[in-house]
């Protein structure tokens, strides 16, 4: 075993931390408060190649893997960009870079990947529906074959950035559940261009990730050309597992970056805030929970990087990616909670940015996969306990 990181990864991290100095805490706070898309960050990220990490060189990318992508997402989050900065990278690097690249048609790759790598297109991912969140097989959005392509009808909910997206990687049913040959049969994945009549989006004002905004999306006879099908018709589940694993690795990385950020702030405050004539950080009641949070973040990081490494080897990493997401989310939540405790009343002040991170970090206990579903997976797949549902 070798835990040494290669030079490229170290340089990438250093370069990102320099890059992030351009975007102050005030910048991210303003985007959050105004629910405003971080356009300047987006453009700068595109320019410095951060959107191109997982896209192959032939399409204008850097041809690197999830390990590098995870490093980048962790670092932008850690340097104050938090969830907004990390999630923005994930959309391009995973839904585009990984998904379209691994399972899309040649035409789709040529059409979308160069635009994604250069930041000329924004992509979104639509899976959740009002009546189907964790139960993917109950989705009702359907696609029917018509006019040399597919016509999509249905409704999606919570779709982050759909209002800004040029296209949405969408999970649909191509065979109704009752006619499907197996549980996973009948699900397909398609790229739906948003610049058409049949796609409408409505913003949802939520607690987390305010700079990006989630949406309800309606598809009314939205047209999808044949070449926009990702993977095989009715067998979309196979490629969805790729996407879910990469998404878990990404959300763990973002959690870890956010967790490190709040922890660093808390440690700094604990060293400098003097109460009863000494720094509050000299009380073990303050310092031990911070030490625990650090230990938990470090452990979760190992699992995240292991999952990323397995992913890049083309090996199954569902268990590792899910464990990473669970542990990183929890470790970050603990760090955020202890940061507020350390800051005392000041933890609630918007200007200290802890409350923003607290709100954002909370997301990963629920989305994209709630903790219960990760525990279900570990219990049934790894421990082979009987399935409860």
């Amino acid at each position, binding site marked *: 075993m070798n835990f040494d990181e290669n*030079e490229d990864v*170290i*340089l*990438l991290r250093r370069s990102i931390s320099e890059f992030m100095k351009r975007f102050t805490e005030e910048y991210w706070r303003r985007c959050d408060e105004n629910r405003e898309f971080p356009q300047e960050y987006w453009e700068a990220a595109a*320019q*410095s190649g951060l959107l191109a990490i997982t896209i192959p060189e032939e399409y204008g990318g*850097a041809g*690197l893997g999830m390990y590098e992508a995870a490093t980048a997402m962790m670092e932008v989050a850690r340097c104050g960009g938090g969830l907004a900065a990390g999630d923005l990278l994930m959309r391009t690097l995973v839904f585009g870079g990984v998904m379209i690249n691994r399972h899309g048609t040649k035409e789709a790759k040529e059409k979308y990947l160069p635009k994604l790598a250069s930041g000329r297109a924004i992509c979104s991912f639509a899976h959740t529906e009002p009546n189907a969140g964790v139960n993917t097989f109950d989705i009702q959005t359907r696609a029917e074959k018509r006019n040399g392509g597919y016509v999509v009808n249905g409704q999606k909910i919570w779709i982050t950035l759909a209002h800004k997206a040029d296209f949405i990687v969408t999970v649909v049913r191509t065979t109704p559940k009752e006619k499907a040959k197996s549980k996973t049969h009948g699900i397909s994945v398609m790229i739906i261009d948003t610049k058409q009549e049949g796609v409408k989006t409505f913003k949802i004002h939520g607690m987390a990730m305010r700079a990006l905004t989630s949406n309800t999306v309606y598809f009314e006879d939205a047209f999808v050309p044949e070449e926009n099908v990702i993977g095989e018709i009715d067998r979309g589940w196979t490629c969805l597992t790729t996407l879910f694993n990469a998404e878990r690795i990404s959300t763990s990385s973002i959690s870890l970056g956010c967790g490190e950020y709040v922890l660093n702030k808390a440690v700094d405050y604990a060293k400098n805030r003097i109460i009863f004539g000494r720094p509050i950080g000299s009380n073990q009641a303050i310092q031990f929970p911070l030490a625990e949070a650090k230990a938990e973040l470090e452990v979760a990081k190992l699992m995240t990087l292991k999952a990323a490494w397995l992913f890049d080897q083309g090996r199954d990493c569902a268990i590792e990616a899910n464990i990473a997401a669970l542990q990183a989310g929890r470790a970050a939540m603990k760090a955020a909670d202890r940061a507020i405790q350390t800051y005392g009343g000041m933890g609630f002040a918007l200007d200290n940015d802890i409350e923003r991170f607290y709100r954002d970090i909370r997301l990963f206990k629920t989305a994209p996969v709630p903790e219960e579903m990760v525990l279900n997976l570990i219990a049934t797949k790894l421990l082979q306990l009987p399935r409860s549902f």
Partner: protein
Amino acid sequence: MVDCVVCVKQTVDVNQLRPNPETLEPEYSKAPAKISDFDLNALEEALRIRERHGGKVYVVCVGSNVQQLLIREALAMGADEAYVVSDPALSSADGLATAGVLASLIKSKIPSWDLILCGEASVDEGAYQTGPRLAEILNIPHVSYVTKLELEEGYVKAWKGMGGSVHVVRAKTPVLVTVGLEINTPRLPSLLMIRAAGKKPLNELKLQDIGVTSLENAVETRRVKAVKVERKKQVIEGEPEEVAQKLVEILLQEGLVKK
């Protein structure tokens, strides 16, 4: 075509440098290493010159315990080739000794060059010595504190910041120019550049490889210590007019403002 040599120094991130609470000596080993800020401006200027006029950009670095990664970073910014002399003997080298080693390195390894660019000083020591001394040893002209630089056939035209005024000077190449933060904003290595940097030549040398047998310092550093600053914690009370009046008096008395 203009070939440039850029001298870079490994320093520590001074923002993260803390004095030892007891001895008050700076704890260099605890602060992360980086390339001195002004040297990155020098490198950026060389890269811009290459973009306009063509040529090669060489990075040279001498010091003790130089981290390869930092030099790789300079290559990732766009330099073509790097020469590093890393030797424990250089740990206490001052501007004179460093300039001597740089001169030997440049003479023995760089085939041809028109321009040497240096940071005007280093962020850790701030002595402003190395660049001008190097020019003297190489017997070429130098222009310091340059805030804008243009190249003409066989000459450089340099805008030299002199506090309140700017002197525009012309100097014949080969020439040495020192620059500070005002001249440009150094680029960040992009992902593709980082990948490409791995394949660029990074030559690591010892003092004897460039024929240096002894080092001569002009200055001996006895001790480096942080100054302990105690705040005065004066509280002024009263009506706004009175408070303002008193504040002005104190500021004048302390010599912090002048009438």
